[in-house]
């Protein structure tokens, strides 16, 4: 039994003005895992073509109103079905095939009545396999396109991360460079605090009164310094480095 990828269930369009012929076609093609859309006029078939994506069209040549060649000519003229493979089914002789002028686009084949089921299956099988391969290639191309887009997106994110890293590295270096220079600015209030403690220990009231005047300002600046440092550690962002240095200077 012919096998078709289950994920890709092809559709076959069969057009024949005689319902009995359509039933016979459906019976022969029953082995294929595909959906068969059968209609008895070219007009109805064309409306289906505009709505669905078919893998193959089986067209009876001798039909009233619009014959198989005319239907195929319109199929070739419609953007979405320009390359749809067509199998003509005809009771006429092989010269009939020269009446069709749409060979330059999609594949074309002929079957002659009475239709041999083995030949029909063989030809349909080939076109369905081609359709399956084409669909797989399309799916693969779409997957690859998606992967390329994802890879490009990741590259963009990495570039952004690199820019942020370089920016912060520069800030860190600036912080370390200037922090060394300003270490003495931190040391001064520390020394003042130590002197204050020593005065308490000694019980030197006159010295304490002198130092008390600068105590409240020292506490305020110390709280600010603590807050800035904690923010800096928490966010890992040194964007406030320069402000911090200014604070240290003021303290």
């Amino acid at each position: 039994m012919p096998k078709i990828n289950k994920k890709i269930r092809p559709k076959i369009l069969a057009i024949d003005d005689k319902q009995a012929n359509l039933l016979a076609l459906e019976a022969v093609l029953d082995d294929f895992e595909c959906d068969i859309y059968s209609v008895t006029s070219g007009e109805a078939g064309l409306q289906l073509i505009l709505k669905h994506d078919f893998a193959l069209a089986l067209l009876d040549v001798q039909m009233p109103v619009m014959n198989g060649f005319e239907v195929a000519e319109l199929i070739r003229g419609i953007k979405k079905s320009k390359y749809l493979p067509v199998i003509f089914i005809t009771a006429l002789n092989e010269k009939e095939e020269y009446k069709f002028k749409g060979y330059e686009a999609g594949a074309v084949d002929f079957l002659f009545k009475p239709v041999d089921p083995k030949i029909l299956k063989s030809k349909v099988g080939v076109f369905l396999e081609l359709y399956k391969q084409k669909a797989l290639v399309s799916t693969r191309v779409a997957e690859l396109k998606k992967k390329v887009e994802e890879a490009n997106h990741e590259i963009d994110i990495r570039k952004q991360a690199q820019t942020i890293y370089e920016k912060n590295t520069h800030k860190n270096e600036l912080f370390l460079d200037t922090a060394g220079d300003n270490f003495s600015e931190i040391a001064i209030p520390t020394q003042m605090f130590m002197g204050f403690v020593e005065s308490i220990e000694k019980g030197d009231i006159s010295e304490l009164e002198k130092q008390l005047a600068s105590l409240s300002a020292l506490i305020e600046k110390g709280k600010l310094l603590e807050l800035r440092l904690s923010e800096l550690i928490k966010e890992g962002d040194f964007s406030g480095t320069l402000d911090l240095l200014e604070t240290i200077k003021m303290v």
Partner: protein
Amino acid sequence: MNVSTSGFEGIVIGGSAGSISPLCAILSALPSDFSIPIAVALHRSSGGVEFHKALGSPEMALKIYEPNDRDPFVAGKVFLAPADYHMLVDKDKTICLSTSDMTNYARPSIDELFETAADCFGKKLIGIILSGASRDGSDGLMKIKAKGGLTIVQNPLKADGETMIRSAMETTNIDYLYSPEQIGRFLKDLDKGSATL
């Protein structure tokens, strides 16, 4: 103003050589209370007697009307582009007439009508291409489709001029390929809410 239950707010029809007969066939199918406004751009020489005779047929419930600039685009009559004028649909749903340069060697240009109508109505527009010998209308129909509108072409096998239709079929994924009589019935049913899209 009546609003069609179909959800469509405009129909634009374009044609050239051999389009009068299919246009008459379409319009003859529509009743006087047809509620979707219709605008038609046909390539024609000014004031042809045969032209007006054909379009003045008593079989047509909707009357042909050559609009003035800034007329509101409403249902109840068929707006036909006057000879030698581009007919456009403005965003405020009024008709604009223009004598600007020819487009696709034509004035009125089908593309001009279709593209401005597509900007105005988006997916609530139906574009129809009839018989003709040029490629005018293909870009306009493509724009209608791109905006989500419905696209119909006359069956080229039965048309006097196939070029315009085949050009549209090649460039746009059309929704329906019908004979003029089928187009008329389809529009009538669509307006009554009995057509299946």
